């Protein structure tokens, strides 16, 4: 058990506006995560709003800034942060709804048209032999649609029309494993100045990504594909 101070960003349109920080003293244990703390705080203050669902870093809803860095709150251990004060703020570069809740609509406006299939061939346990009716083992895609990469990207910060790392990485996945998708159509979506050529390779998206999508590397893969004319 240790006592940690939490400073939490609060905003409610017309109500808490301008935003403020609320401070709480919280008792945490070894396994307590930032999301656990928010859940505890909400018992006393039901007005605290945040997004969450799976609690194990698989759904991607609880993206937020913790001490200024983009993380999934559910897999962010409080004591591992090693700070006496933990500052929790909403993601950057997204419309703010309330407290820590951001509007994901603009994210999906760019992401959905790419049409990345949600399952992919699994590369795990390559020597195992799947039963006949299964064909090859499959698994869900890495991308959690959490928007941490968009929050970290310095270009998204100033250009809302930039396609952004998540959509570009999804496009690269379609090129790598089309699963029936139209590769040329997807490449046409990204081969322009609001697409993969807008990126300045700061690679902050890849540093922020909680699930090894490596969007920066995927954007570089798209450039290579386009430069080398590999898809023809």
């Amino acid at each position, binding site marked *: 058990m240790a006592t940690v101070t939490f400073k939490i960003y609060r905003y409610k349109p017309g109500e808490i506006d301008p935003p403020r920080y609320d401070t709480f003293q919280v008792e945490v244990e070894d396994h307590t995560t930032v999301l656990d703390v928010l859940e505890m705080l909400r018992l006393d203050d039901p007005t605290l709003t945040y997004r969450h669902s799976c609690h194990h870093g698989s759904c991607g809803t609880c993206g937020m800034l913790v001490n200024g860095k983009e993380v999934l709150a559910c897999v962010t251990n409080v004591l591992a942060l090693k700070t006496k004060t933990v500052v929790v703020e909403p993601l950057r570069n997204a*419309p703010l709804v309330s407290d820590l809740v951001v509007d994901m609509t603009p994210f999906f406006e760019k992401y959905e048209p790419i049409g990345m299939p949600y399952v992919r061939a699994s590369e795990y346990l390559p020597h195992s032999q799947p039963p006949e009716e299964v064909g090859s083992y499959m698994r869900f895609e890495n991308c959690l649609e959490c928007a941490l990469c968009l929050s970290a990207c310095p270009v998204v910060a100033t250009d809302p029309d930039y396609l952004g790392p998540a959509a570009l990485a999804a496009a690269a996945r379609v090129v790598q494993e089309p699963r029936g998708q139209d590769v040329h159509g997807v490449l046409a979506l990204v081969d322009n100045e609001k697409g993969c050529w807008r990126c300045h390779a*700061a690679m902050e998206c890849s540093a922020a990504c909680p699930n090894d999508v490596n969007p*920066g590397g995927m954007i*570089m893969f798209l450039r*290579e594909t386009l*430069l080398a004319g590999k898809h023809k």
Partner: protein
Amino acid sequence: MVSETYQRPEPRQPSRRFGDWFRLRGRSAGGWAFVLHRLTGLVLVFYLFLHFYFLSYLARGPEAYAVMVAGMKSLWITVLEVGLIAAVLFHGLNGLRLMLMSLNIGVEQHEAMFWGTVVLSALLTAVAAVLML
């Protein structure tokens, strides 16, 4: 029973954060490379215009040019010139790094390549400084 009309306010749109072009805190090496590339690029564009201005002395004849060149012979100007060399070197070498990355070469090693760029620029700047001072 009739519902009360209630309209939830629109979300607050994010403002454009130009500070993020130059924010070093909370950044990884790739982010620092981006910040430095942008800063040095801006410095070099500024210098390009300055250079054009100073070369206009050439059109005013040998004497005017000699006066301008003599005016450049201060230590402070030389120090600024060394800074300029450093900016050129970093921007050029990091540009090569960005080109390699865009050919999908060394993307996994982009941080090491950034540090290599920094070290190489520093070394070459030192050589230039020795030659100039």
